[in-house]
């Protein structure tokens, strides 16, 4: 396993949104594959619990809200020579177009777009990424599907996908890569939080291969972080249990 192109042995990987859902699963799997994890999240207790459960050693918890410039600065100052970054911090709130407000726009873009883009900027400007580093951004099939009331959420993910293409072109000179992982409906606390406004269980059953677990998304992310995907950049990996097969 150590010499396998799928191993992450000795690699330092930053995971945002690591305190739950896809981020927590990604931290867990990457640690299993040998990585040192720098886990970032807002909730101290949950983040500490995730880090305490990681296999191996040398992991670190950094508590902070990445929409706060000071927190981003502190994070960037605290890290060095990252071999991989997983941008999985995100929020989903729904609003039909007639209910959309400036506040709704600002909140969703601050977390889902501004934070990952500005964190990428700071990591590049401060030279905190190792040669050959792999950047993975968690988007959503919402960018294609955009069902009712997800207009702004889908917009944040579509915007991020577009920006990641540019990031990929720019970082290729240093042998670095940038890709998106675009999940369908995943069984996470984020989806549970939407139960009162949409029936997410129904949505998951629509997918030909059924419910997607956070571990399924984590496995795709781990592949994109590993040397095995050395030649993969500027693309988006769909992990949607076949849901978009129905979508024009």
């Amino acid at each position: 396993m150590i010499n396998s192109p799928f191993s992450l042995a000795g690699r330092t990987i930053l995971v945002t949104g690591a305190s739950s859902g896809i981020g927590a699963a990604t931290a867990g799997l990457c640690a299993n594959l040998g990585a040192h994890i720098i886990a970032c999240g807002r909730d101290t207790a949950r983040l500490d619990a995730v880090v305490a459960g990681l296999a191996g050693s040398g992991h670190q918890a950094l508590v902070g809200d990445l929409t706060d410039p000071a927190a981003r600065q502190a994070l960037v100052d605290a890290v060095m020579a990252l071999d991989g970054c997983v941008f999985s911090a995100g929020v989903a709130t729904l609003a039909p177009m007639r209910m959309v407000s400036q506040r709704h726009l600002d909140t969703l873009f601050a977390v889902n777009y501004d934070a990952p883009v500005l964190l990428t900027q700071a990591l590049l400007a401060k030279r905190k990424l190792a040669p050959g580093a792999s950047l993975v951004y968690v988007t959503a099939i919402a960018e294609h599907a955009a069902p009712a009331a997800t207009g702004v959420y889908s917009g944040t993910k579509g915007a991020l996908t577009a920006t990641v293409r540019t990031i990929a072109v720019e970082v290729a000179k240093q042998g670095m890569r940038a890709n998106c992982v675009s999940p369908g409906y995943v069984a996470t606390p984020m989806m549970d939080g939407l139960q009162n406004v949409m029936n997410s269980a129904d949505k998951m059953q629509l997918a030909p291969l059924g419910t997607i677990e956070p571990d399924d998304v984590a496995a795709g992310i781990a592949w994109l972080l590993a040397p095995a995907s050395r030649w993969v950049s500027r693309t988006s990996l769909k992990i949607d249990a076949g849901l978009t097969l129905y979508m024009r």
Partner: protein
Amino acid sequence: MNDVKNPATFQNPFSLHGKAILVTGASSGIGRAVAIACAQAGARLVISGRDATRLDATLAQLAAPGDGVHQAVVADLTDPGQLALLAAAAGQLDGVVHGAGIDGVAPVRMLRQAFLESVMATNFIAPVMLTQKLLYQKQLKNGASLVFLSSIAVHTGTVGLGPYGSSKAALEGFILPLALEIAPRGMRANALAPGLVDTPLVNHAAEWLAEQGKKYPLGLGRPEDVAYGAIYLLSDASRKVTGTQLHLDGGIPWT
């Protein structure tokens, strides 16, 4: 193996231990690299190709499987009889990588029907009918993963690649209904869409290849790069990935 709570699976979700994988076009290039990498990942292989000597050379490079023995079957899959013999020899499978393919370069003005038909026969009809045969004979286990070799030529235009690009486009169209038809048994179908990879299919013109390589921000692909993409799609790591095209192209923004 499909249990998400199975710690062995998520310790190394990319393992192919205990899986039987059929790789066509295994006598050279990407198919050979896929076979070698799958064996390294622990799979038992059934490999197929037209050239017995070169197929045996691939067989000799395969790491020994955990159980059973690797098998090599010489076959030209454009011949229905030989395709049937391969299917009969393959047994129960956890995955198939349709690596057999030929290039198909002809400007439209110069295109001949016989040439177009030969490209379609190898690149489209053979993998489709092999899939048909394996499904009809119930040789694909629940959760099996089918991987088709497509190309960036489906997604960007390249002068002269009409026959080749359209044969691969047909494959990508084929996997959408296929993915839906096999999903009830947890089976999956996906395509790999590589850019220019340094293989015998294209490396007879070294100067041209080097020139093309300059367009690729991360350089030309190696057959292993495609093989590792195939391993992701064959393994349980991708058990919820179906009906997609995986782009492997060094991040090329335009061809």
